[in-house]
């Protein structure tokens, strides 16, 4: 393994500070690791949510991991476009989320939001098909709160388990 490969592997292994069972690579936050002409390691990341408070911790984690793997200097660039989407979360990462009790986002669910003037107003409270319970797999789940413990999650309850669980919201 070359020095550059060793650094890249260390950066890919940086855990997400809020959901420690997945890495920033699993979540699609990490977009590229390359070596610049001046020898510095340049890491490109795409933030999940604009205000995600974990971004500073992620930048620090990248820097520590790269330096620990032998990088001489580290630059972390933020790339906004194309915007992050939960469709970048790998199937392996979705399995890790489920194992951690977090219902993963469903690929392509919903599609991009329609512009407000074309959106249909609900006649009754919207009841979209919910995510399956990460524990028992039941589809019989109900939304408790549209925002959860972090910006990227909402809070649900499984009817058979009668237990609440986090759902990583679809963001496409």
């Amino acid at each position: 393994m070359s020095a550059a490969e060793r650094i890249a592997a260390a950066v890919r292994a940086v855990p997400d500070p809020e959901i420690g069972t997945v890495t920033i690579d699993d979540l699609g936050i990490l977009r590229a690791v390359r070596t610049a002409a001046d020898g510095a390691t340049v890491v490109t990341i795409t933030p999940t949510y604009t205000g995600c408070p974990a971004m500073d911790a992620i930048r620090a984690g990248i820097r520590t991991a790269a330096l620990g793997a032998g990088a001489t200097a580290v630059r972390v660039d933020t790339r906004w476009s194309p915007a992050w989407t939960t469709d970048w979360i790998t199937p392996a990462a979705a399995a890790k989320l489920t194992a951690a009790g977090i219902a993963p986002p469903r690929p392509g669910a919903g599609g991009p939001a329609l512009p407000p003037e074309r959106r249909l107003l609900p006649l009754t409270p919207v009841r979209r098909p919910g995510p399956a319970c990460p524990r028992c797999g039941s589809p019989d789940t109900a939304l408790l709160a549209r925002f959860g413990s972090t910006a990227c999650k909402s809070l649900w309850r499984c009817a058979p388990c009668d237990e609440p669980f986090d759902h990583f919201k679809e963001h496409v």
Partner: protein
Amino acid sequence: MTDHRYPLRLGDDALIAAQRLSWWCTRAPQLEEDVALANVALDLLGQARALLAHAGDLEGAGRTEDDLAFLRGDREFGNAQLVELPEADFAHAVAKLLFFGTYQELLHTALASCADPVLAALGGKFAKESAYHVDHATQWTLRLGDGTSESRRRMQDAVDALWPYTHELFAEDPLWTAAAADGTGVDPAALLPDWTRYVTAVLARATLVRPEGDWRPGGGRRGLHTEAFGPLLAEMQALHRAHPGARW
């Protein structure tokens, strides 16, 4: 080349809206809503940071996002007065989020195809977040408006109180005109028909009355603010002014 005052003003809207909304943290009517409003405020703060940083880069005078947020006086802020108004109760917060969020979603969607590559990238990103905010505000407007007589009365009061301030969002302004003319920004007047259609439909479905009347307070874009703005700014800037360059 984008006029740095353009992203600065959009950033001011997001920053002051975030500061006002974050007041609800620990004060919302239920725990879930406390978390929801704090998360919306966090999105807005993130948007403000990206916009202010872009404005600082364009200006080229070495001012950072922190310099722009914490070291300007009240007359240097170009946010619309709507976002700075105090929120007398939860219905005010909901009505404001409906009005401002719908404006933001349309603005961000339009920005996504503007000629400034940074603003276009940010617009595409922010539009997803604003859509979620609008959805949240819509659900609450329907629930409170078409709820009990007390919730309906308070929701209608909030709509009546805030409606006049929505005009400023779409009012003609030289900065908008110039940005739209060279493609680096959006003339908000172009967003008004879609905004009106959506908001009117939500109010009607919520059994609320859309206010009439032609009082159009304004001045925020020129740095003229309401009485509530000074205390808001003082609280927001106090720590940075007492400990310049403070970090954690």
